[in-house]
């Protein structure tokens, strides 16, 4: 539990990181338990539309008279699921390819790195938009796969260069002499040494995936069904929220939810960075 005590020590001194970590935790809890506690019904009540914030609806109501806050809480889960799934795929593919090519080297390395270069060059977001417009993305797993289509490449390159410098270290040499299998070498010997880097990249991959997935819903490229922040903003914009001041809460609440989460992730990942990277603490 050295890691946790280290993390706590850093968080205690870095207020930004502490608040960031707490916010990320709150969002995770909202994603897990939110839909059980809050319900967004199907009833529509036009007389309740665009109410100002009140005790019953702390962030006002939308055009159908439903509470904005409860929609935001319910909308947390789909966004977080897609973000985490996509980050898992990105990290898994990136780390596996990076470690294998970096350790094995040779022709396989050259060929796979050329392929990685291709994915690194093709602009990610336009490719995601194009794929999402042809492929049905109602299933979160499919959406997550599309979102991570180019994101793994950068990670694979970084991990590969670390694996290449690990290759000449003594413990790898020793493991090789013991005749361990390739799976053991990659999973047990190399992986723990790139772990910190992977953890930070995991958080950043989540923010990247949330950025892109909310963007897809905003643009209406991903199917509008159910309830999440991107869909809320999309509907608000479509209902002319820019031109009336009553719906300001409906438009800006989901935007605030996204900004707070993204900023919290960035500050939290900075704290993780200094836990794993003692060099940074001195600065």
């Amino acid at each position: 539990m050295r890691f946790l005590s280290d993390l706590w020590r850093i968080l205690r001194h870095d207020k930004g990181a502490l608040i960031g970590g707490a916010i990320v935790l709150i969002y995770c809890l909202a994603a897990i338990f939110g839909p059980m506690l809050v319900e967004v019904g199907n009833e529509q009540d036009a007389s309740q539309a665009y109410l100002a914030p009140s005790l019953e609806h702390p962030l006002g109501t939308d055009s159908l008279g439903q509470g904005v806050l409860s929609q935001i809480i319910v909308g947390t889960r789909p966004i977080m699921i897609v973000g985490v799934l996509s980050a898992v795929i990105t990290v898994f593919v990136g780390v596996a390819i990076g470690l294998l090519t970096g350790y094995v080297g040779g022709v396989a390395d050259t060929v796979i790195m050329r392929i990685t270069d291709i994915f690194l060059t093709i602009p990610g977001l336009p490719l995601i938009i194009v794929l999402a417009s042809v492929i049905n993305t109602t299933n979160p797993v499919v959406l997550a796969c599309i979102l991570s289509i180019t994101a793994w490449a950068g990670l694979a390159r970084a991990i590969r260069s670390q694996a290449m410098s690990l290759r000449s270290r003594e413990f790898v040499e020793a493991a090789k002499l013991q005749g361990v299998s390739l799976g053991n070498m990659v999973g047990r010997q190399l992986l723990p040494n790139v772990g910190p880097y992977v953890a930070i990249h995991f958080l950043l991959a989540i923010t990247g995936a949330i950025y892109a997935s909310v963007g897809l819903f905003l643009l209406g490229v991903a199917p509008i069904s159910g309830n999440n922040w991107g869909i809320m903003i999309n509907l608000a914009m479509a209902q002319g929220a820019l031109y009336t001041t009553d719906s300001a809460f409906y438009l800006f609440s989901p935007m605030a939810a996204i900004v707070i989460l993204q900023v919290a992730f960035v500050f939290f990942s900075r704290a993780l960075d200094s836990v794993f990277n003692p060099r940074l603490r001195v600065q």
Partner: protein
Amino acid sequence: MVSYILKRLAMSLLIIYIVISLSFFMIRLMPGNPMAALEAQLRMQGGLSEVEIQQRINAVYSVTPDAPVWEQYVQYVWGAVRGDLGRPITNPGTTVVAVIAEALPWTIMVVAVSLIISFIIGIAVGAMMAAFQSSRFSQSMTFIVSFLSAIPSYLVAIALLYVLTSVYQVFPSGGAYGVDVTPGFNGPYVISVLYHAILPIAASVITSFGGWALGMKGSAVSVLGAEYVRAAESRGLSDRRITQSYVGRNSMLPMVTQLALSVGFMFGGSVFIETYFQYPGIGFYMIQSVGQRDYSLMMGCFLLITVSVIITNLLVDMLYPLVDPRIANPAARARAADQPSDTDQEVLPAGGSMA
């Protein structure tokens, strides 16, 4: 040097070829693909003979639908190479290339200007943060800059739209220039173009200069601690000389590498920004064509965005030997390659992993 450029060139051509193939396979071979859908739609309309249907499809996607698949593939690739990307389904009177040719200059202008502005501001702020470490300025700047770089650009665009075009009607909410000016090189037109470009550029600068500042700070701080800087100081070189030739140049190195990576990211972000500001660039047309299921225009836009990114990458690659002479000199490059450099691990692209 020549072989370095040739290698990059070959790689670029390969990527363009792959993207062309990808767009063919997506249009033609996906289950329920757009081409079959168009054929079914034309049949449903009735009143068209089989030959006419084939001709229509041929016009839109510039392939013959009843030929064998490999023949269609060759037709498509050859068409794309000659600059024939078919016609937009929604507007068959014009060609995809004509639409793109009109849109591309706007996108390039906005992306280039905002990239240059955010690069300069970011490098300046980052260098100052590194120079006055642990001052209050540096601390508050670190906070502001990480905050701004974490905000998605489309949200800034919406906020700007709300405040500056709706509540206070300071800026126009769409278009590339006003209706009352005649295009051409005259004063009112140029002013109108700049006036319309301010908001899109502001939205992407606000969200992207922070990444540059943080990267520059990190890189400058690590250079400041290097032995050669201490050696230069102890040799009694002037502060200005040390800042420019030792710290400045070396800490700029990873930033220039970043420049190449971030071009793709900026083009991606321009999709959102152009859509929200209704700026008639390539991203705007791409999203419009997605909404209208206009696949030939959509793939054309995607192809052109990719090609633009690749060309800018090539330009940056050619610029790189100017900043880092080791690249052009093979012997020095071999020496540099022997020492595993960790520059690409230290700096994360602006915008996380989506670059």
